[in-house]
C-alpha cells in the first residue's frame, strides 16, 4: 500500500516537472540519454553488443546453430528472438517463464528486423529442407531504467553486424560474416499530459498515458510500430511521433550503426 502511494508521488513529480518544461534528469524533451554501444564483447556468442541508455543496460548475444528448417520454408534459416527480463535487472522483474512484457519486447525487436529485411534468411540455408542455420538473438536485460526496446533493438542490430559464422564448429565452409542489409532503429516516445518526450525513464514510462515505438530504416521508411498502454491517442499525436521517431533514428544510426563493412 505504501508502495502504491510512492508510485503516485513519483508520477506527480514527473508530471509537475514536465509542466514546467523539465525532465527528472534535466534532458530536453527530444533528447536521448547518453548512449554507449560496445560490440563483440562476449567470446562465447557469435555476435554480441552491450547498449547503455543512461542507466539502462541491455546485453544482446547472437548464437548460430545448425538445425532443421520449418517445413513450410525449407530454403530459409530461422531467426528466433528472445528476451529475458531477469530479476537482477529490476525490483519489478520476477523469475519465471517469459511473461507478456518480455514476449512483447522480443517480438517488437524481431518484427523490426524482419520488416526491413535485415537478414536474408535464404542465405542461412545450408542444405534445402535439411540443414539451416538457426540464429538465436537473446536480449538479456541487466539494468532497467526505462526504454528497454530502443536499447534492445540497437543492441540486436549491432550484434548481428559482428557475427562470425561458426562454420568450422560444424565442419562447414561458407561466408564468415552475415550480411546486414539494413539498420532499423527503434525510437520510443511517451505522451505525458500532452507532452511528447523521447527515450523515457522508468518514472516517465509509469507517468505516461501513452507510449509509441517507431522503428525506421536507413531510407526513412517504417519497419515497425507498437503502441503500448491503456489510453487512447489522437491521430495528430501519432503522426507527430512517427515523424520524430524517424528523425531521431537517423541521428542514432549515423552515430552508431553506419560502420564501414
Amino acid at each position, binding site marked *: 500500500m505504501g508502495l502504491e502511494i510512492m508510485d503516485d508521488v513519483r508520477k506527480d513529480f514527473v508530471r509537475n516537472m514536465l509542466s514546467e518544461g523539465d525532465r527528472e534528469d534535466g534532458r530536453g524533451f527530444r533528447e536521448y540519454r547518453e548512449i554507449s554501444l560496445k560490440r563483440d564483447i562476449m567470446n562465447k556468442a557469435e555476435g554480441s553488443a552491450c547498449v547503455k541508455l543512461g542507466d539502462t543496460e541491455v546485453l544482446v548475444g547472437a548464437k548460430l546453430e545448425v538445425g532443421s528448417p520449418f517445413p513450410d520454408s525449407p530454403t530459409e534459416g530461422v531467426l528466433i528472438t528472445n528476451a529475458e527480463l531477469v530479476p537482477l535487472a529490476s525490483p519489478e522483474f520476477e523469475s519465471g517463464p517469459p511473461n507478456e512484457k518480455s514476449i512483447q519486447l522480443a517480438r517488437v525487436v524481431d518484427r523490426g528486423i524482419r520488416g526491413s529485411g535485415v537478414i536474408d534468411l535464404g542465405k542461412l540455408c545450408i542444405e534445402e529442407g535439411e540443414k539451416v542455420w538457426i540464429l538465436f538473438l537473446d536480449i538479456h536485460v541487466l539494468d532497467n531504467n526505462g526504454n528497454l526496446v530502443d536499447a534492445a533493438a540497437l543492441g540486436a542490430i549491432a550484434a548481428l553486424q559482428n557475427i562470425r559464422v561458426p562454420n568450422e564448429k560444424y565442419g562447414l565452409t561458407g561466408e564468415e560474416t552475415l550480411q546486414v542489409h539494413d539498420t532499423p532503429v527503434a525510437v520510443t516516445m511517451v505522451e505525458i499530459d500532452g507532452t511528447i518526450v523521447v527515450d523515457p525513464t522508468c518514472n516517465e514510462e509509469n507517468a505516461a498515458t501513452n507510449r509509441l515505438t517507431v522503428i525506421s530504416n536507413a531510407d526513412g521508411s*517504417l519497419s515497425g510500430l507498437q503502441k503500448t498502454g491503456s489510453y*487512447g491517442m489522437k491521430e495528430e499525436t501519432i503522426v507527430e511521433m512517427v515523424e520524430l521517431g524517424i528523425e531521431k533514428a537517423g541521428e542514432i544510426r549515423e552515430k552508431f550503426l553506419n560502420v564501414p563493412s
Partner: protein
Amino acid sequence: MKKEGEIEFIKDGKRVDGRSFDELRNIKIDVGVLKRADGSCYFELGNNKVLAAVYGPREMHPRHAQDAKMAVVKFRYNMAPFSVDDRKRPGPDRRSVEISKVSREALDPVILREYYPKAAIEVYVEILQSDAGTRTAGINAASVALADAGVPMRDLVSSVAVGKVGGEIVLDLNAVEDNYGEADMPIAMIARRNTITALQMDGNLTKDEFEKGLKLAMKACQQIYELQRTALIGRYNKGESAKLKDSGT
C-alpha cells in the same frame, strides 16, 4: 513477411478476392449467443469466425493481482486447434500472449474500470476459424460482448487492419494478402472520438503510406462501429434483454 513475386495482388483495380482497395470483407455480428457468459458475441469477418465472452465484474483471483482503485481487465485470445491449416497446439504461445496484451490495452480506455475496484472483468476470445485479421475481429467481438454483459463503457471500440500489397495501400487484408503482402497494420479505435487505442505495424511502409493507411483504417472503423451498434440495438429490440443468465450458474 514473405515475398511472393508471382502473385498478382492487384488486377484492374481490384484485389485477389475482387474487393476494391477500401472495401471490408463481409461482416456478420450475432450478440448474446452464449448462455453461460454474462455477455457474448459471434463475429465473422470474411472467413474468420470468432467468438467472444465476457464474465464479470466478479472477484479477482489471485488476490495479490487486485487493483485497489479499479477493475482489472483480463483478456485471453485463444485459437482453437482446428482453426488454422496446421493444427495449433492448445495453450498460449508467444503470439497469443502479445495479442492478448494489445487487445486488452485496446479495450481498457473505454471500460469504466474505476466503478469496480478490486474486481476482474474477464474477456475471452476464441478463434474458431482463422483467415487473417483475427485480432481485429477479436477486439470487435469483445467490444460488443462487453456491452452485452452490461459492463459500463464510455463507448465501443472498433478495429481493422490495413496493409500494403502489390504496392497499394488496402483495407482489411485477407490471408493471401497478409502472408505475401508488404505490410500489415492493425489498429483499434474509439470510432466516435477518433481516438486510437491500438496500433501495430510490421512489414515496410513509407511515412506517406503509413498516413494514408491510418486514415483508411480510421474511416473503416466508423463503418464497423455502425455494424456493432446495429447488432446491439437488434439484440435489445428482440426483447432478449430479459434473458435469465443465472440459471445453471
